[in-house]
């Protein structure tokens, strides 16, 4: 070293070195282990998010036992509507068929959620009916078969 280093500079560099190394040591203990594994986040949280319990089983699970209903449904306009759309979450029932039965939506309001007349619904998207005029003293399923709506009961 043939140039002159002022003593203040030496002390300053030493102070910086102490603070930076203290920071790095503390940081090493505070930052979680999987942090930075895939990006600026805790990599373990992907696994934790994936552990959330499932409430809806998916249509395939229904068909393992209810294949006859599926065959009926495939023949009519409700073929693209999945079971849990109307019947609600089915995971618990598919695990244990006897304990938890699913809701059977039989009221005019539940059919009306999709089929009631609304100017915002496109006619190509869904068949609409004016529920205030159409057989108001009956339930929909008195005449319509719910899985085969155009196969009338009477």
């Amino acid at each position, binding site marked *: 070293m043939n*140039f002159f280093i002022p003593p203040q500079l030496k002390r300053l560099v030493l102070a910086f070195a102490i603070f930076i190394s203290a920071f790095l040591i503390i940081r090493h203990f505070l930052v*979680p282990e999987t*942090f*930075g594994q*895939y*990006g*600026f*986040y*805790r990599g373990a*949280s*992907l696994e*934790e*998010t*994936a*552990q*959330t*319990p*499932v*409430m*809806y089983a*998916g*249509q395939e699970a229904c068909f393992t036992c209810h294949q006859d209903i599926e065959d009926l449904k495939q023949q009519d306009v409700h073929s*693209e*509507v*999945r079971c*849990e*759309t109307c019947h*609600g*979450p089915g995971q618990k029932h598919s695990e244990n068929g006897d304990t938890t039965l699913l809701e059977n939506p039989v009221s005019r309001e539940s059919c*009306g*959620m*999709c089929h*009631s*007349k*609304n*100017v*915002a*619904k*496109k006619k*190509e*998207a*869904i068949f609409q009916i004016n529920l205030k005029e159409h057989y108001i003293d009956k339930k929909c399923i008195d005449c319509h078969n719910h899985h085969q709506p155009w196969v009338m009961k009477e």
Partner: protein
Amino acid sequence: MGNERVKSSRRKFLKSAATIAGSAIGFNLLGSSRYLVFAAEPKEEALPWYGIVIDIEKCIGCGKCAKSCKIENDVPQEPFFFRTWVEQYTVENNGSVDIISPNGGIDGFEQQVPDEEVFKSFFVPKMCNHCSKSPCTQVCPVGATFESPEGITLIDEKYCIGCRYCVQACPYGCRFIHPVKKVANKCTLCYHRLKKGLDPVCMEVCPTGARMYGNLRDKDSKIVKFLKEHTTHVLRPNLNTGSKLYYNALSMEVR
């Protein structure tokens, strides 16, 4: 002291500056800087890159998507918190636009404006857009929200500090603070279901198939075919969020 010292220190300065610059360039070229600079890059090409399509012409406003999402994802039933919701836009003949979203569409929609006054009306389901350049991940001070390697924006509930910066930053209004857990919450595209090979619940229960999702990298997937065949738009393209939620038949009134 004097002239000699000035000349020699200039040479030493140039030498040390060149050393520092050279080592910085070398360090970056070698690639070891990725251990210091955290960035979201797709790590493996084999993973899917999820995108979503919503077809406004098919949505009938039944609200099953919003209802089933709340059940599946343990979202409280109050009408303030939604991971996904449906809005109804009614453009009247006099040009005014009404936007309603009663309980997110869960109870269905009653037609408010009589037929003869309506010029056009439609339903717009909304959810997290899973942006590829999402503002919410940029503003998070701790790294509690992030884009997963599959392109899904997720929240690390154990790490979130509840500062609400992300709720403010999202231009689509899809984040909220969970009233019980007190941390941020939003649509995860049912990540827990995707990992089991199931569809997200909103897509599963939609009766008309208005909601679709898929792998944007797979040229044969339904969603890529749909994007090729239809004219799709994203919400607020001027904000350059890299939104991966594409709407078919999106009208200019939609905010």
